[in-house]
């Protein structure tokens, strides 16, 4: 049985549905990537799982729970964590407090130390108000905050945006390690080529509908689709001289 299942999900913010007819699933210890054009509804879909959409129909199940009957904090409580695309940190809290604030962490101190090991830039700025962090530093903090609670499913909305290549690599490497810790990952990425390369499966979204789904490598191999949604193959910027 899948860890997360969406069946016939439709929803939006006002009168019109932003996403419609979504059937999608994430198995335990799986990495799933969602890609698609801007405004396709990727973030909307993730928000639906987290319980932020004012209007929603269809079924969303997580580990046997009917998610729609749970509040956002309950969803967090049963092991879902989330990195939003925007406003993903508490900007008036310090870096340290951003991590401390996560509920239900077994050994908070140890976990925070692990996060600071992972992102040394954060460690050196632990007493800074998070709102003053740089774009990339925020992104690291948001990612670290989501990892704090050792979730079973982690929802990432463009975790690599604003990250330098080195940090993108670092974050992706961490994502790859997650299944081993028992977590599944559902992420939205614009750097989809990079992400799909290590994803088990992928979905491509356009105008609120799933237009294609397959394993990560198969999607990358589908030249036509890739051209349409993933951009041309990157030319390596630097040839090692």
């Amino acid at each position, binding site marked *: 049985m899948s860890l997360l299942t969406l069946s016939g999900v439709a929803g939006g*913010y*006002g009168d019109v549905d932003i996403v419609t007819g979504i059937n999608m699933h994430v198995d335990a210890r799986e990495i799933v990537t969602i890609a*698609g*054009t*801007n*405004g*396709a*509804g*990727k*973030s*909307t879909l993730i928000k639906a799982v987290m319980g932020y959409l004012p209007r929603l129909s269809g079924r969303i199940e997580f580990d046997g729970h009917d998610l729609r009957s749970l509040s956002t904090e309950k969803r967090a409580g049963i092991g879902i964590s989330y990195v939003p*695309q*925007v406003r993903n940190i508490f900007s008036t809290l310090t870096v340290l407090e951003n991590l401390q604030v996560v509920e239900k962490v077994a050994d908070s101190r140890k976990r925070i130390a692990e996060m600071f090991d992972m992102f040394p*830039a954060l460690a050196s*700025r632990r007493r*800074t108000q998070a709102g*003053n*962090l*740089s*774009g*990339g*530093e925020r*992104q*690291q903090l948001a990612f670290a905050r989501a990892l704090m609670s050792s979730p079973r499913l982690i929802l990432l*909305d*463009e975790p690599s*945006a*604003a*990250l*330098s*290549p*080195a*940090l*993108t*690599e*670092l974050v992706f490497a961490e994502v790859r390690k997650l299944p081993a810790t028992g977590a599944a990952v559902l992420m939205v990425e*614009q*750097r*989809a*080529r990079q992400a799909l390369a290590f994803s088990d499966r992928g979905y491509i979204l356009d105008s609120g509908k799933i237009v294609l789904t397959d394993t990560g490598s198969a999607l990358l191999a589908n030249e036509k689709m890739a*051209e*349409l*949604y*993933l*951009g*041309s193959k*990157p*030319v*390596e*910027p*630097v040839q*090692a*001289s």
Partner: protein
Amino acid sequence: MSLLSVKNLSARFGAFTAFDGVDIELAKGSLTGLIGTNGAGKSTLFSAITGYITPSSGEVKFDGHDMLPLSIEKRVEKGLSRTFQVPREFSRLSVFQNLMAAPPNQAGESLAKLFITPGRVRRQEAELAERADSMLQFLNLARVADTPAGSLSGGQKKLLELGRLLMLEPSCIMLDEPFAGVNPVLVEELSQRIVELNQRGITLLIIEHDLASLSRLVPRLYAMDRGRIIAEGKPSEVLADPRVREAYMGGVI
């Protein structure tokens, strides 16, 4: 001849130094990239140049004028403007109106002219509307032209932010990560557009982490690390610089 010249610029927040002794020269009509580790101080540098923070020392000259005493608006009037890394849309205005708000010197912004020369105001509006429409087409935002900008997706907001700046048509544009969160297909189109702008004589300075797209786009790069410029030159040279590779790419590539 250099249009923007930044000399020995530093900014501090209490004990923390955001950047220190930065020198940047942008020739008129040049197209330049600025890369750097996260937290290197790039966005803060932009803020200092455009007037959102006061640097602790140094000099910013634009077109021969000393910029530091000027307010943000005055700097924009002189032709220097920027986008924000975190988009700042007019959330309750429609996407179309967001674009219409940008162009400078609109007659209809003056109460007097509104009543004395209504005809001129109307003509100008019509012209601007045309430009805004084609901008919407270009940014793939035509579909959402009439929705309030606050309900755009993250990527769409970035595009709108860029579009608004393009409507402003300043002589020097500073873009803060214009490609982050933008679909790769569109990134290619945006790059194209940036080249066109540059060919029309507009000077650009672009912060970007998408090195592949950036190095294809710009002939010259600055690299920053921990508040200092550590390299400058052709992209291939800069990216080959061991210090840059060490700091920026962690030797990953």
